[in-house]
């Protein structure tokens, strides 16, 4: 907020920075509420266990802070990573950039629901008034963030369709990662519809896997994309694509079986002796294989194997934004003189003559 260069108004900041700001505000609004619950539960746990149920109360009162939809907040920067990479892959300016800023902000509306620490469940029963009073909070706290995520993807596709798209390696994990997160957000909405009957089943674990692993894949995309500025080399595209596809397979394998098993009423939180006639070993086995693949891919990616050995130029992706106007890796203080910017894409402004700008 306080370290922007001259001319860098909030509507001109890169999407990653915008999403980081939105995520930071969301964390400031929600994590202290969780801290308040921690204080109550810790005091109660230490002195008598009279109000919050001892050990069992920990999940009851704090589970929301690490579950969904609160996990949307932790995954919020994934949307900024995708929104920053997509115009570079499309080789054109982001269309409806203001809409993209609003869409990322919309995802953060989830905090209004999570701080209430109450699942906003939609129940189709009772009078019309009952249905409406159930539908409104459900829509506000589950569908509105999902709408923001869908708009982000729609604007990315819109920009790609109207540009001259190319296969940019970091775009693949960024798009797949956000795709996984949105699949998790859809699952979260389904989980909060009572007639779907998946509450309390392993369906929720599938939602958590989709969102958590999707965020990790997006983080990988961000590290790969900005690798030239971090350590001065561009990771090899085939390796990035291979890791991304393998991670995608692992995420789907780890999460989708739980969606299926959830509809077959496999209960959550137990490992055996539950009343379930479906092929539980198949779903649980497939999920375990998926988790193993994700673990393997994560180890490969973060072991530094794909850092690449060829030195990167200052602008290896033919990018648009300010960070690509300095050397790779970025030197201390980034620029010899603090630059003045007059648009969100100062580098593209230099490359494209004013008369041919779209």
């Amino acid at each position, binding site marked *: 907020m*306080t370290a922007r260069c001259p001319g860098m108004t909030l509507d001109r900041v890169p999407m990653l920075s915008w999403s980081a700001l939105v995520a930071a505000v969301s964390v400031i609004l929600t994590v202290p509420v969780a*801290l308040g619950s921690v204080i109550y539960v810790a005091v109660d746990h230490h*002195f008598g266990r009279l109000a919050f149920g001892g050990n069992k109360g920990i999940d009851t009162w704090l589970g929301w802070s690490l579950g969904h939809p609160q996990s949307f907040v932790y995954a919020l920067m994934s949307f900024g990573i995708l929104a920053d990479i997509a115009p570079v892959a499309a080789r054109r300016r982001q269309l409806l950039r203001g809409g993209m800023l609003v869409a990322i902000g919309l995802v953060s509306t989830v905090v209004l629901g999570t701080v209430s620490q109450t699942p906003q469940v939609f129940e189709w029963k009772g009078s019309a008034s009952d249905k409406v009073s159930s539908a409104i909070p459900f829509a506000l706290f589950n569908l509105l963030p999902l709408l923001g995520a869908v708009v982000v993807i729609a604007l990315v596709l819109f920009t790609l369709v109207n540009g001259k798209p190319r296969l940019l390696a970091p775009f693949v994990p960024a798009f797949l990662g956000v795709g996984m997160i949105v699949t998790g957000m859809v699952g979260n909405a389904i989980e909060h519809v009572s007639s779907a009957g998946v509450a309390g089943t392993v369906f929720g674990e599938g939602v958590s896997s989709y969102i958590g692993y999707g965020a990790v894949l997006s983080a990988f995309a961000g590290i790969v994309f900005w690798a030239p500025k971090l350590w001065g080399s561009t990771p090899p595209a085939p390796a990035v694509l291979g890791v991304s596809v393998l991670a995608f397979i692992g995420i789907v394998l780890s999460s989708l079986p739980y969606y299926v098993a959830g509809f077959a009423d496999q209960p959550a939180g137990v490992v055996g002796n539950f009343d379930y006639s479906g092929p539980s070993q198949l779903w649980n086995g497939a999920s375990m294989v998926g988790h193993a693949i994700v673990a393997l891919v994560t180890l490969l990616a973060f072991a530094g194997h794909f850092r690449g050995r060829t030195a990167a130029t200052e*602008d290896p992706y033919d990018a648009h934004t300010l960070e690509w106007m300095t050397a790779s890796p970025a030197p201390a203080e980034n620029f010899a003189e603090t630059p003045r910017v007059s648009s969100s894409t100062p580098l593209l402004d230099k490359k494209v003559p004013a008369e041919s700008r779209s």
Partner: protein
Amino acid sequence: MSATTDRQLPAGAPPAARNTILVAAGAVAVAGTMLMYGMLAMWFKFRDAAPLRVAKNGKMIRDWLPADIAIPEVATNTLMITMVVTCVMAQWAVYSAKRNDASHAGLALVVTSMLGVALINGQAAVYMQMGIGILDGPYQTMFYAVTGTMLFLLVTGLAFSLTTMFRVYAGRVRDYQVVSAHALYWYFLATTFLAMWFVVYVQK
């Protein structure tokens, strides 16, 4: 070190004052507000879940505050009034610092610090007068959790006041951004204390 000449942007003006401490104090104030309001929301939840009982005046009330516990209203109301006065003193420090008046800014911060000590002492007096144990029941546990958290925040406010006071007496009175952030912090403490005072000590 820098970009090639054809990609260089014009140099901007020298960086203006960034108000980092003021923004940080604002962020802490928002986080602290959410912390206390979240705890008060859980207080409401437990109070509303308590069973009904007949009060001394014959009305039906929630059996939340145990009948043998009396809130010392004089002490708690004094705490609230002291909070308001503390904010006035903190704002006086800002007024003086902006005019480079080190003596009055320092005096205001000394008084703010003393009031901070008085607030902590007052909260301790409330505990002494109530004489309840944390193990006595759910109400007592939650009472100590929520008021103890507020007490911790008051201690941080006192530490902020002392730090600001030492800075001013060390000659940094022109750097009034810290004094402004200090006042903002005390406004935050006062508003959260107001909410806690009303819920815990007035509504009970």
